[in-house]
């Protein structure tokens, strides 16, 4: 079949059809190249202007002569939020997936699949709205108690006594958005565990914990790691939900996750775009967007390679 379409004798309509489709199939490549090229071309003058301090400092001085910009706090903040979200979301997602695949009665499992898919479908602006009015008020009290009883751990220090707009709460909101992604991919992978391996484990007298530890999780490891990385990519690029719950500050908040103020590149772009005063400042935001794009592209590429590799091993 393939030879027929490739040969010179192929129908003329077919050849036109093939070329059109092949051309259209490369839209994604063209778009990716376009994003890299156009945003990159805006990032180069900014880097020439500011030098590497654009990536390594936390100055944000728009009225200085010359104005100075540094997004180190934002880049670090994005990573910190993503790590907090991972720490919260990954265990919950794994247990949810294990429950769905190995424990829940079929009807409950179906209900949970719908629940997780519906969670994934809720727009981020609505999650932000909900977080701002429903999650944040009680979370102030939780964070205060956390600080009161566990304040001796550096992670839970808070000197200002202000618990609003903390990285912890922004990370928790990101976790809510990550859980459906990680859960559905993990459940997908766990479902493919060969039943003969599970039955063999049972007949050897394994408990469920042993089966998970030595059969199901090792079998699905690649897919699970890939799913987690995809969730990480989503967390790095999330803008609006974080905008509502995080107090954006330019200084690097290294580890005090329940101290008010943190950073996020994506949120920086949206929150500063409305008040830009000239082309130079827009270019700075475009350059920030370029580095955000690179960051998510690398994370996603690694994730997809891991998933693709495990897929090939299985077939």
């Amino acid at each position, binding site marked *: *079949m*393939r030879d027929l379409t490739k040969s010179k004798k192929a129908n003329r309509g077919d050849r036109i059809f093939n070329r059109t489709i092949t051309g259209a199939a490369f839209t994604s490549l063209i778009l990716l190249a376009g994003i890299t090229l156009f945003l990159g071309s805006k990032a180069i003058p900014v880097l020439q202007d500011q030098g590497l301090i654009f990536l390594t400092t936390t100055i944000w001085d728009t009225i200085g002569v010359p104005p100075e910009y540094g997004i180190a706090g934002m880049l670090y903040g994005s990573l910190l939020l993503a790590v907090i979200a991972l720490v919260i979301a990954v265990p919950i997602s794994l247990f949810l997936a294990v429950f769905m695949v190995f424990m829940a009665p079929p009807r409950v499992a179906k209900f949970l699949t719908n629940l997780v898919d519906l969670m994934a479908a809720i727009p*981020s602006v609505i999650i932000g709205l909900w977080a701002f009015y429903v999650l944040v008020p009680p979370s102030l009290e939780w964070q205060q108690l956390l600080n009161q009883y566990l304040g001796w751990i550096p992670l839970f220090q808070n000197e200002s006594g202000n618990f609003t707009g903390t990285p912890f709460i922004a990370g928790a909101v990101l976790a809510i958005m990550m859980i459906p992604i990680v859960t559905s991919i993990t459940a997908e992978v766990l479902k493919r565990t060969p039943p003969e391996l599970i039955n063999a484990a049972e007949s050897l007298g394994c408990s469920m914990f042993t089966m998970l530890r030595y059969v199901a999780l090792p079998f699905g490891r690649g897919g699970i790691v890939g799913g987690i990385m995809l969730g990480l990519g989503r967390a790095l690029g999330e803008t609006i939900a974080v905008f509502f719950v995080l107090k954006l500050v330019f200084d690097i908040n290294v580890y005090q996750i329940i101290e008010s103020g943190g950073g996020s590149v994506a949120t920086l772009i949206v929150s500063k775009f409305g008040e830009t005063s000239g082309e130079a400042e827009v270019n700075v935001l475009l350059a920030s967007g370029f580095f955000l794009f690179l960051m998510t592209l690398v994370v996603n590429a690694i994730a997809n390679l891991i998933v693709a590799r495990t897929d090939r091993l299985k077939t």
Partner: protein
Amino acid sequence: MTILLAESPPIREEDLAPQRPWSKRSASFWVAAFLGSIVPLAILGGLFILTELPAAVLLIAFYLPLQLIGAGLAGYSAKGKHGVADSSIIVFAIGATALSAIVLGSMLLTIIVRGIAAFRPSFIFQNNVYISPSTPLEYGGIGHAILGTFLIVGIATLISVPFGIATAVYVTEVRGRAVPYVRFFVQAMSGVPSVVAGLFVLTVFILTGVLNTSAMAAAIAYAILMLPTVARTAEEVLRLVPEDLRTGALALGSTRSRVVLNVVIPAARTGIITAILLGIARVVGETAPLLLTALKNDQTVLNPFSDPISALPTFIFDNVAQPFPDAVTRAWGAALALMIIVAILFTITRFLSARKPRG
């Protein structure tokens, strides 16, 4: 051996599904499990009445460890050492499920309860001209934002669907040499943050003066975000079309392009509609690209090229965190409207994909 295998009954789907051998329990286990869950619950109830700690802290800091101990003891009495690990998994799994259900339930409930307060005919049909955040709810509405969302999403669908389906057809029907690369780039596209898509349209079309900040610019940004979802879902459904249909049509003398256009795509019709709807659901609530490419407008705009335009997500964004309760109620009302659109899309896709594929 081979003869034996050939004569054995055909393997059914149910036999291949993961088995749950450990779900068989003895009676003593149920007694232990009952005690192990009732005692921590009683302690939780006592703490809830006696202390003034918030419910979430009580649940996570007191109830979860107590329940783990209770379940661990129950597991130990029934199955010995292995029972402890098993029962902890059950506790954590049910805890994770309950947590997710509470979060989703709380979201849906708040949207409905607080959004319904804004709903009235004028809220759906009027636009937001002459309305300030402090204007009472009787005046003004989200009609312009609903139309804006439909306009932007509609144009985005028209742009992205042909490219998305062409990508899928390339992977499953044309099967050229570049298939692995095309798939890789589509995967990479699906990770592009929405704010970056907005920035891209801003640089290419708006800063260069090709387009105004308008529905068209926003639609291009939306189309970039829709493309990978449509392409990947369409690819999956085209794969489900039986190979016999293709070879049969070819044997009857069809050309390859006729096979794709008249046989494969009609056979996968339902699935392709699902792919389009999933793409729409992916973008309908995206806010960040709109803030960069469409801005906002209190008037009803129907020309996709002329003026800035509001959509539901930007309307919500503008009205959140206002110091006026009526503005906040409007935001919840718009959130309810957006959620209804998402729910309709979600239900239709569920309904369509539950049906058996044709052919």
